[in-house]
């Protein structure tokens, strides 16, 4: 088969991080090609460059044998590249048809400044049929389920005559039935000669749908393999590049007293959630996006309201109505999105570390900057935060170091219970191991960690116990002997055994 796309020696640097170091990547026409790698391996960056969302620092891109210089997202689309992001880019208040033909609605032949709604509707309906969707194209996109919204994006790609469709973690929020529908559509596109780049963590899916797989690690290409001739174990070895034991510094810690008990907590998105966390324990929480995991964390932390239920700390009921009260009870939350929720980016490392405990560096409201610098330097040292100085703005740090600053903030606040949501999202492998080490040290001191993650190897590698959530409920509590990805996914997608 001829190569439809050839990316040669692509390089990309961000401040403090080499995201891509000379990646070469070839896609043949009509193949489904998996792009594998851990968080921070460079998959998203490579795909963003291809989709024109980011520029490259070096390298060439050839499409259909012709050198191209992708100038932006619009140009990429004109070149026949469509990307379907994990966070869908549907405009919820517009109709399905408008979403499909955004920016190029069909016009009347006689009056080209007037939209031909009849034609628009008919064409949209036909395109939707091609992706197996039988809906009225005039309803607002917000009324569709996430899976159907995704299909609308695929229909949009089809309508643009895309030659290459990039799917970034397309199944994260889909049920098994919806995944089947997606795969049918993928095969249909493939038959029409469309190439698909399939970015996913789910190796079973890769096995099922992909022809070849390319593995990236730390911004480098490790290799391209034929899916039929290799096993998922081979890919994992290529992705991780070392034994998993080394990545997860898990050591058994004696389980202590009950540190936190959540009883019957309910809110708009949570339904009667109960569980306990113990001293010296890492409790994992699994679940799909939208299962209520993050809402649960924010509710315990007082950042979202609960309508029923209680939170007990050390055996006593704790009335927590705000993050401030949660912090004073020794709870800390490392939120899901460190840039939007975890850090004050224009502030320095020093200022971020002390933010949750300003009382520790002040007297009657007056800051002791000397003492603050000392505190910050200690934590920068202890957590090996790589920054030129403590007065570096956190916006200039790499993801891993940013996450360490957030952790330092909570370690300084004397938290006893650390809730950490997606601890290593977008962090490179080296820094991940260090963050796991910090969590391990934390529980070794008899404190407790509640770790929410979409990364199943991480959950399995670090947790002492895992609870699984689905649609706001706890659907399972698993002991280490029951830890396996398929079982967790089964409970997470709402199918009980």
């Amino acid at each position, binding site marked *: 088969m001829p190569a439809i796309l050839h990316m040669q020696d692509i390089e990309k640097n961000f401040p403090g991080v080499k995201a891509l170091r000379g990646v070469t990547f070839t896609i043949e026409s009509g193949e489904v090609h998996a792009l594998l790698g851990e968080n921070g391996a460079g998959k998203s960056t490579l795909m963003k460059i291809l989709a024109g969302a980011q520029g490259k620092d070096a390298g060439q891109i050839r499409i259909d044998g012709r050198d191209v210089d992708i100038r932006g997202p619009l140009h990429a689309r004109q070149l026949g590249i469509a990307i379907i992001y994990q966070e869908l880019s549907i405009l919820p208040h517009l109709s399905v048809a408008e979403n499909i033909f955004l920016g190029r609605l069909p016009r009347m032949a006689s009056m080209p400044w007037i939209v031909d709604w009849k034609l628009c509707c008919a064409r949209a309906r036909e395109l939707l049929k091609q992706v197996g969707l039988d809906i009225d194209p005039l309803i607002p996109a917000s009324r569709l389920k996430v899976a159907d919204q995704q299909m609308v994006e695929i229909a949009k790609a089809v309508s643009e005559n895309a030659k290459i469709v990039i799917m970034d973690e397309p199944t994260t929020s889909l049920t098994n039935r919806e995944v089947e529908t997606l795969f049918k559509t993928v095969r249909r596109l493939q038959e029409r000669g469309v190439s698909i780049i399939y970015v996913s963590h789910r190796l079973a899916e890769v096995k099922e749908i992909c022809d070849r797989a390319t593995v990236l690690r730390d911004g480098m290409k490790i290799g391209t393999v034929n899916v039929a001739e290799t096993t998922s174990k081979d890919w994992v070895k290529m992705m991780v590049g070392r034994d998993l034991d080394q990545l997860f510094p898990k050591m058994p810690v004696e389980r202590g007293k009950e540190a936190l008990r959540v009883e019957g907590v309910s809110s708009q998105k949570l339904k009667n959630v109960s569980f306990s966390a113990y001293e010296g324990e890492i409790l994992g929480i699994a679940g799909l996006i939208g299962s209520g995991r993050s809402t649960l964390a924010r509710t315990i932390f007082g950042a979202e309201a609960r309508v029923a239920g209680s939170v007990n700390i050390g055996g006593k009921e704790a009335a927590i109505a705000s*993050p401030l009260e*949660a912090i004073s009870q020794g709870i800390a939350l490392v*939120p899901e999105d460190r840039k939007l929720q975890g850090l004050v980016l224009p502030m320095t490392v020093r200022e971020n570390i002390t933010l949750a405990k300003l009382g520790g560096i002040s007297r009657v409201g007056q*800051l002791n900057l000397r003492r603050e610098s000392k505190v*910050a*330097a200690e934590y920068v040292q202890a957590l090996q935060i790589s920054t030129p*100085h403590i*007065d570096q703005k956190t916006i200039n740090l790499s993801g891993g170091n940013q996450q360490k600053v957030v952790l330092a903030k909570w370690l300084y606040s004397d938290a006893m219970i650390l809730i950490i949501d997606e601890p290593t999202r977008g962090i490179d492998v080296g820094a991940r191991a260090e963050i796991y080490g910090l969590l391990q040290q934390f529980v070794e001191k008899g404190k407790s960690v509640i770790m929410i993650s979409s990364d199943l190897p991480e959950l399995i590698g670090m947790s002492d116990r895992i609870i699984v959530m689905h649609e706001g409920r706890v659907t399972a509590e698993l002991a280490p002997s029951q830890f396996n990805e398929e079982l967790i996914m089964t409970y997470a997608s709402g199918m009980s055994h």
Partner: protein
Amino acid sequence: MNQRENHAKGGPADRLSAPAGAFHLMGRFGDQLVPAIFLIALVITLSLVSPNFLSVGNFLDIARVVSIIGIMAVGMTIVILTGGIDLSVGSTFALASVVAASLIPGSFSDAPRILAFVLPVPFAILAGLLVGAAVGFINGFIIAKSRVEPFIVTLATMAFVRGLTYLFTGGFPTIFRPMPPLFEWFGQGYVLGLPTPTIFFALVVLIGVWITRRTTFGRSIYAIGGNEEASRLSGIKVQSIKIRAYTLMGALAALSGIILASRVGAAQPTAGLTYELDVIAGVVIGGTSLLGGRGSIMSTVLGVFILGVISNGLNIAGVPTYYQYVVKGLLLISAVGFDSYLRKMQRI
């Protein structure tokens, strides 16, 4: 773990904290570099163009004139650092000045319904300051609790408070027959050869710098402006801090208003019209970002002086007021454009 502790015992921790002060100064200096250079270039140019510009008397004059706007600009900097804005400062300025003036012994107005009783001068001034603080508190309370845009809330109070001012005065100015000496000193006196408005401005700046750099309140202001959600999740009392910021703004607007009433010997219900423009312009030209979280009081001082020097220079050169508005507008646009360009470069 042991290894790590041993590691930490040595010098590296000290090494990290040692240059902190230097970097801190550099960082702060860096923020003010552009407006400072601009101001110096402006002074040099005007000195060359106009021989009357370069004199102690003229500089004292500039310092006195900018004080009225400058005092308010300090409060506005704090509000803008939280990511907010206050358009009602001109109205608060007027209301506070007419209330204080009407309470001062010897005050006189043609209005039928003016307060009949008077207070000793310090208490009359205090009453005016409290009126300003109350307006600020109301602004802050609505903004913090309702989450309506500060722009809209203070646009509403701007009209509302101006209306109150007209109702209170009946539209007549309040004058003094005669003005008590203490009140006369408040806006017209001199301390160590410096006019009192300038002294008040300097004090407000010093306190403002101390608040923003050296207190937990100031730290919280920067944090909220930098990332409100992260601040809330770090246990910062976001609502209370915002209310305090707007209350302070109101009190400072009142202080300015009362000083001007003393200075011109009358409290006008129309005083302070369009002052919000000058105050916000001073803050923005100094380099404080309207998005919040970035900027400083000292930058604002530079911004206010840039405006003051330009307007003084244009006056000396005999340029009509209408042109001065045009220049002010152009300067404001350039400052905002420059800020957004810098932000783009830093990928914020």
